[in-house]
């Protein structure tokens, strides 16, 4: 890949506009991690096959390893860091709380991607069936849990958000 020099770009991430410099071919994943220090978004495969790098772009779940950072200007990007209130360590999003309570994280590497996928699902469908949850999560790979506790976490968070 030939470098053609960095260009300034503005990204709206978790409600804040960040200005940074990135090469034209830079991936959103790399800019989030290397330029903005948002390490919560994980690199699991680089090929759009594992879901570890999932973020929300205008509310839609997307794999940030397949997106060019410069294409993201004017869009609202949401990452795992945007889900909880930094000032209040107990201020976890219902999905994060449910993930912790149900043991949805084991090694935890896949967790941010799963949580973002689940958030997009629950925004669209507040009361999804188990089958629908499994279908929505089937683009994310977890090697530790066998998915049961992940599905339970999504169900439990959905119930909390609805109530």
């Amino acid at each position: 890949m030939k470098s053609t020099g960095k260009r300034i770009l503005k990204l709206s991430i978790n409600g804040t506009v960040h200005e940074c410099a990135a090469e034209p071919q830079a991936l959103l994943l790399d800019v989030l991690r290397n330029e903005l220090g948002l390490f919560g978004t994980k690199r699991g495969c680089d090929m759009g096959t594992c879901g570890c790098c999932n973020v929300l772009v205008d509310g839609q779940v997307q794999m940030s390893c397949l997106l060019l950072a410069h294409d993201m200007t004017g869009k609202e990007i949401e990452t795992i860091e945007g889900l909880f209130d930094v000032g209040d360590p107990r201020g976890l999003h219902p999905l994060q709380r449910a993930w912790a309570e149900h043991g949805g994280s084991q090694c935890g590497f896949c967790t941010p991607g799963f949580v973002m996928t689940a958030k997009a699902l629950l925004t669209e469908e507040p009361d999804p069936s188990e089958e629908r949850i499994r279908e929505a999560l089937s683009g994310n790979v977890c090697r530790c849990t066998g998915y049961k506790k992940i599905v339970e976490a999504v169900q439990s968070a959905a119930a909390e958000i609805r109530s």
Partner: protein
Amino acid sequence: MMVGTWVDRRNLRLECQSHLGHLPAHLRRRTRYHLIGWFKREGVAVIREERSMSSDTLKLDEDIRGRKEEGKPDEGKESGVQRERRYVGADRPRPEAPDKVTGKTLYIHDLTRPGMLWGKIKHSEHAHARIKSIDTSRAEALDGVRAVLTGYNTPEVRIGFLRDNFALKRDKVRQYRDEVAAVAAISPEIAQQAVDLIEVEYEPLPAVFDPVEALEPSAPLIHERDALGRPREDNVLAMECGHESGDLAAARERARWIAEGNYRVPVIQQACMGTAGCIAEFDARGNLTFTGKTQIPFLAQKDFNQALKAMGLIGNNARVVVPALGGAFGTGLDTHCYEYITILLAHRTGRPVKMLMSREEEFAYLSPRQSARVHIEQGIDEDGRLTHRKIHVLQDNGAYASWGATFPTVMLLPVTSLYKVPVVHYTSQCVYTNNTYCQAMRGYGNPEVTWAIECNLDELAEQSGLDALELRKRNCNEPGEVTPMGGKVTSCGLMECLEVTGKQLAWEEKRPASQAARASDSVRKRGVGLASLIHVGGSGRIYRSDASGIILKVDDFGNVNVSYGGVEMGQGLHAALSAAIADGLGVTPDKVFINATDTATCPWDVGTHASRGAFMACNAALLSIAKIRERLLAFCAEGFAELLRKNIQTLSKKDASFEPPTIDIDAACRPDNFDILDNQVFLRDQAHEPWARVELGKVLRAMHFRQGGDMLTEPAFYDPPSDLPDWRRGIGNMSATYTYGTQGVEIEVDTETGVVTILRMVSALDCGTVLNPKALQGQVIGGIAQGVGYALYEEVKMQEGRITNPSFTDYKIPTAHEMNFPIHLHYADTYDPEGPFGSKGAGEPGLVPTAPAIMNAITNACGIRIRSLPITPEKVLAALKQR
């Protein structure tokens, strides 16, 4: 009639009216279910049941033992550390969960060092070839490159337990992934560009990819010389592991039915979600700090110290620091070429160097799980009792020796000890080929050989007409048994596991019904099957020491800082350990802080493998806790009365209605009258009086800030009661205890497409006391998911030694979609005398019997028997055609 309070082993308090003064010994530590059954028979009336939280039940539970300290059994009662359980056994979130769900956990991928360079490796383009020349000039000339290393410009760093591998290869390559050169540059992109500019000229050599062909006298030699420079004559690894007990000829005579067969398992990938990586850096004195994905920090330290010596850094030390792992599953059990290369690059450049594998690189260049070919013969007599088991295992080792080569040592356990089998003949062979070299993965040889044993048992059942579940029951292991290899069975719930699995599957109706329906015209055929397991439950002694050290440090604020050498890799070690410490010491789990694993600050530990994490860590912690409590309570005998007087003064000032105690405080402060609970030290006989309680931190400050002050830091070293087996003879009690289990499954086979669908599963596990139900559920169901992958989908495909499916697109791992079936979990009601709180290891068993259970169900459904994994639709269709 009298009223008594009894506490069951899950901490439920039962208040009962009874004519009996105490609970019979055999009912202690049993569950409510057992207690109630006994009460009914004895006419005991239960007045009240509640979760016990108050301190007056302290004397009723007898869980934590101080006996290790004395070296004698059952002296826990005198040790002063008998406590109720609040956190052990409870469904508590893991301590690391908040960081993980918010993305705060830092893995090797997220770490960086000032001035850090990036390393990349040039791999071989041949499976077997002489290296004629390496031209690095264009790479060296590239801007941003800081070092280019080959085997010719670096010291020879030999690695592997047979010392047959080299960090960077000289003279020849023996597999596609062989490391021939490496680069350090200011960015990973530049490092990769430089690697692409390195030109290597090879002279291809004849190669061998099949382990049977590799045994032929005409096969090309992979290694011409051994580590000592002596010429080699064949490709067989110089290792012996076998077992011979009983008279095989006589057993064959005795057998009424004999079944034999050849079973195969493929190479599979551990596929951790966090790929492999490390950072190496040297200080000005030549000492190394290595931060990386490992499960064996202390053995890695030893390996790296040897490398430092080879690099001329005599007397220097490697410090190994373990970040959050992102999964390991065995990948971290050995040290790897890429790690040594990173160390060489850091040393050459004088800068920190990071190496990180991409997913594709991890698939292609990291050692996967070893394949195996198993020939098995088992026989049963007229009554369905096993007469003998004869097994030969042939392993394709690949080009170099790593721990995959030692799978036969762990196979010894199921081979000799799964079910009662009086005559065992076991031989194993591991042979070099030009395939990728392999190493450990969860289960470590056990799933490979259990696949053969459990499928073959069903073949015996089919032959003899005996029901497959009944056959297993007749040969079931039991407590008190000594297995042919010398395994001492201290607790065993296998019979319960078999019974529960049978019941949950509706075995008695479904098994014969499915068999009868085999001949029907229906396209979709259903069947049920099951398989069992034995695994090490009290660590597995495969090294000179099988110990774990721990240091507990209680600070001025009542926090407990824990330094433990084992590794949390997602299995729930920290959840189990913090609960054990909280319950053992009498603090709340939020006061327990477990430090990152670091060889500089933690005591030695052999490694996190063999399902040993929680078993070892909790046992070590209980030893340390016994010492801390003893010292703390000894101080209280001198200093607590004064603290109580201050308490009384403060309370009197605050509250006019407070009535000072009338008892003799000095007399009440006797050593046996103290306890700790909820971060407070208190007088047992005044447990409900506010004046009689002092915050733990306050007591520690009093102990610290005085003439001749002292602080509580206690190391402990736990070495389990087990033997290092004699591998050649296959004799020795390799684990302090053994875990058992049975898995059952109901499947449906589409006979037109060959697709196998799992309808439901049952997992019954005998792992003693459950330390954390959610964490255990994750280990069991997570294991089952890997077992389902092993059974139906996963295989690293190689074409003449080159891996052809290095991605999640081409290498299928079960997702939430495939795992869409109910799983019934059951835990046998056992209590292991050596286990912490009665528990046994449970990390690996989940995937051990899954594949044979599925295959046995497929046979039940449609009468076919596939003997090689994975059971793909193509294989199913081919077998159906042949039927």
